[in-house]
Each structure stands twice: as C-alpha cells, then as structure tokens.
C-alpha cells in the first residue's frame, strides 16, 4: 500500500477519523431530534462566510465558522420563539447566505480560490494546520459530550422531566447548535458544504437498524462512520474520483445494504 506513504493521504485519513468520531456523536442527536435540516442550513450558510472571508482576505475557516455560529444561534432562537416556522427560517437564511456568497465571488473572483472544493470538499487541501485545528475541535466536542451526555439524552427523550431535574433547556439548545456550527466547519474541508449532511445523518441512521439501545447506537454510529469514510477515501484514490462524493456514495451504499435489516 504505497498510498499510505503519501503525506496528503495520511492527513486525509487522520482528518477522516476525527470527523467520523465527531459527526457520529452529533448524528445520533441530530437524527432523534430531527435537526438534519438545521445541519444543512448551517453548512450552506457557512458558504456565505467563506465568500466574505475571500473578500476580506481573512482566514476562511474563521469567517465560515462565524457565519455558521450566527445561523446556529438564530435557529435555536426561532425554535424557541415560534413566531416563524423553524424550517422556513432556515430555508430563507441559508439560500440568502449562499446567494450572497455567489454574488461576492462572481464580483471578486480570484483564480487562486477553488469554489468547487468548498462545495464538494477536497482532501488534498488538508494542511497540518487544519489537522491541528480539527484536533482541538475534536477535543472540545469530546469534552462537551463527556460532561453533558446525560443531560442531552434526557432533553431529547423527555424535555419536561429534564427541566424538573434542573437541566436548562434553552441554554442547552443554544449550546448544541453552536457546537454543531463549529463541527460543520470541519466537515466542509472533507466533503464540502453540499455533501455534509451525509455525515450528520448517515451514521446514526445506519446504526438504528442494529439496536434499540442509545449507547449501542452511538457506538455503532462511530464504527459505521469510520468504515465508510476510510473505505471511501481508499476508493476515491483507486477509482480516481473526488473524495467527498466517494465517501458519501460509500456511506449511502452501506445504508442501502442495512436498510432491509430493520
């Protein structure tokens, strides 16, 4: 396996493993709380942030993250207020943000920027710095789940009782969405704005077929996510296909194979 000796591939593997673990943890909660559209909204909104970052010449991950966090807070806010239907709010906001992104990029187009890679991901662009950044985010996410796993489970299962135990529903909703906004940035590097919801939805959905215990489902989500991400990376190299798309296709095939098990 000479491929393993390439630096870019090693980085892609490490990145893929970190992303699999992080996204699988979120995947369970995103699926049971029916937040996949929120995930789509956040990632697409980040595109506006990327464009703005290009325009202002600042770090694209930072500008994308700021946009992602803003929409995340906004989604959590609308879901509390109920003045506007949450889905409608997300739909409006994310297409607006993408439209702005496209407008900016068409005006200030610089040949050095590869829009394609933001939309569909590109593992070859993962740098050492990116990996450090991913590592830090992974650490924060793991700490978050270690500390609040019980609260998050109870909130998803039975919010009324969670409140009676003193769990702060509002604060947790904001915090969860903000964390989601942060991790989405990791996924954009790997599979891009458009394909990221696969990472949020597939792991838990595949795992649901195998257990009715949330502890087991989460363990299995991580396992399945690692399987399709790593397999997808190898396939993309050997088949000479884009990495993001190959990972998503591999994951979806895994979902298809397990679908009839349920």
């Amino acid at each position: 396996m000479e491929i393993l000796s390439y630096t870019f591939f090693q980085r892609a593997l490490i990145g893929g493993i970190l992303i699999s673990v992080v996204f699988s943890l979120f995947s369970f909660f995103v699926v049971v709380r029916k937040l996949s559209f929120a995930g789509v909204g956040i990632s697409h909104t980040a595109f506006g942030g990327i464009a703005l970052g290009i325009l202002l010449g600042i770090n694209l991950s930072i500008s994308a993250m700021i946009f992602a966090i803003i929409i995340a807070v906004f989604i959590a806010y609308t879901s509390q207020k109920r003045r506007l239907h949450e889905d409608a709010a997300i739909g409006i906001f994310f297409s607006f943000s993408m439209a702005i992104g496209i407008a900016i990029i068409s005006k200030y187009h610089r040949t050095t920027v590869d829009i394609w890679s933001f939309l569909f991901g590109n593992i070859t662009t993962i740098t050492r710095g990116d990996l450090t950044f991913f590592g830090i985010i992974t650490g924060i996410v793991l700490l978050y789940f270690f500390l609040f796993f019980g609260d998050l489970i109870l909130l998803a299962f039975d919010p009324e009782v969670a409140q009676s135990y003193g769990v702060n529903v509002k604060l947790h909703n904001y915090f969860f969405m903000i964390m989601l906004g942060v991790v989405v940035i990791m996924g954009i590097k790997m599979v891009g704005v458009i394909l990221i919801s696969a990472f949020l939805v597939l792991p838990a959905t595949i795992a649901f077929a195998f257990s009715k215990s949330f502890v087991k489902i989460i363990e299995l989500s991580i396992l399945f996510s690692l399987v399709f991400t790593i397999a997808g990376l190898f396939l993309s190299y050997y088949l000479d296909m884009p990495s993001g798309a190959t990972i998503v296709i591999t994951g979806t095939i895994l979902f298809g194979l397990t679908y009839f098990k349920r």
Partner: protein
Amino acid sequence: MSEVVIELKNVLVRRDGKIVLKNVNLKVYKNQIYAICGPNGGGKTTLLRTIVGITNYEGEVKIFGEPPREAIKKGVFSYLPQRSPMDYTFPATVYEVVMMGRIKKMGLLKIPRKADKEEVLESLKLVNMLEFKHKPFSALSGGQQQRVLIARALASKAKILLLDEPITGLDIQAQLAFYDLLKDLKEKTDITIVIVTHDIGVVPTFVDAVACLNKELFYHGAPSSELNMELLKKVYGTDIGVLVHGHHHGDT
C-alpha cells in the same frame, strides 16, 4: 405537625394572558400524600409545573423554604409528567430509561456507578418490570411504559414525588399494585408525594389530603371525612357521585 415541604401562597398563573390558576394556597407536609383532582383544563398540570419551577407564576412558592428554582438544583423533585410531550419512539432500553432518573445522583461525567445500577434494578423490581430491562422502551405497551416511567421517578430517590395522572393506561391490577407501592413508599421512607388523579374516580384512603382544582383550589381534607357535596358542585359545576372510595384489602 411536621415540616412543611411545599407551600404556595396566593399563587396566580397566566398562560397566553389567560388566568389559569388563581388564589392558590397550599401546604404539603413531609411524608404526606396529597391528592389533587379536578376537571380537565382545571390547571392540575400547571400546578405541578409551578411547583417544580418550570412555569412562571405570581405569588409565593416555597419548596423546603426556598423558591423552586433554587430547590431544583438540589435534585429534590422527581416529576412524572402527564403522558404526551415526550418521544415514545426514542431508541432506549428499559434499563437506559430508568437510568435517566439517576442523572442528578451521578458524578460530573454521568457514568453510572454500582449504586446507580442497583437502584435502577430495584426500582424496576418495584414496578414489576425487571424482566423487561433489556427490551426496547418503544416496544412496550402503554401501561408497561408508564410503569417504567414510574420506576424512573422512583430511581431518582428525590424527596418530593410529583405524579401527573400516573395510573392512566394501567389496568386495574397494575393500578392497585401502584397504590400499594405508594403506600409502601410513604411508610418506609420520608418521601412527600403529590398525585394528580385525572378524574374524581378513585382516591385511596391512605391519602392524607385531597384538594379539588378548577382554577382555584378547594381544600377538602382527609378522604375519610364526609364529603362536601356543595364544594364538589362548585368545582365541577354539576351534581356528582362519590368522590372517595375505600381502598381494597378491607382495611376500611
């Protein structure tokens, strides 16, 4: 009299600008079982939510002498809501559901310890659901799910147990077993229990006090005393039958 555990003074609650509770005065003493009945929409659920501090109110609410929002931090409440807002299809085993009741007792990392595991199994045994511990919660019948949720409430070992229409969905046998369980809890521990009964049907004789709620609270006293038909007419707006049934076992 023993210590006052729950005290409400002149409590008023609005929902969407409409007054749902008013002039509510209530005192529940330690180790009492306090039953609240009343018509649908009378505010029973709202009253329980006020006690646990998850609804806004005017007036004074004291739990062990503190406002609910302080008391809640100490894990004094074990609240079993009325069926509805939760996700009954959530993927969790019976064991996992009951373990959620231990969340306040676990350490920072919320990893179950031996004591937590024992408490969960003990609570499942009390509601006669031990053999189902590895079954998916979503696959149980409504009555079985209710028993598991009761076990979760018991597993939390909180000082105050608040039950909103807990026997709904249970068959007669399970209802009687549940009442025995409450009676046992009262005798063996110093727990304080507030129980909302969805109708005026059965209020067991071991209950210490009954109150009827229809926006205002009408205190009725111990169930063994004579019924005030005028009072019930006021609460329900019509003539009704017997409020209090003697418990089985021929103990009355």
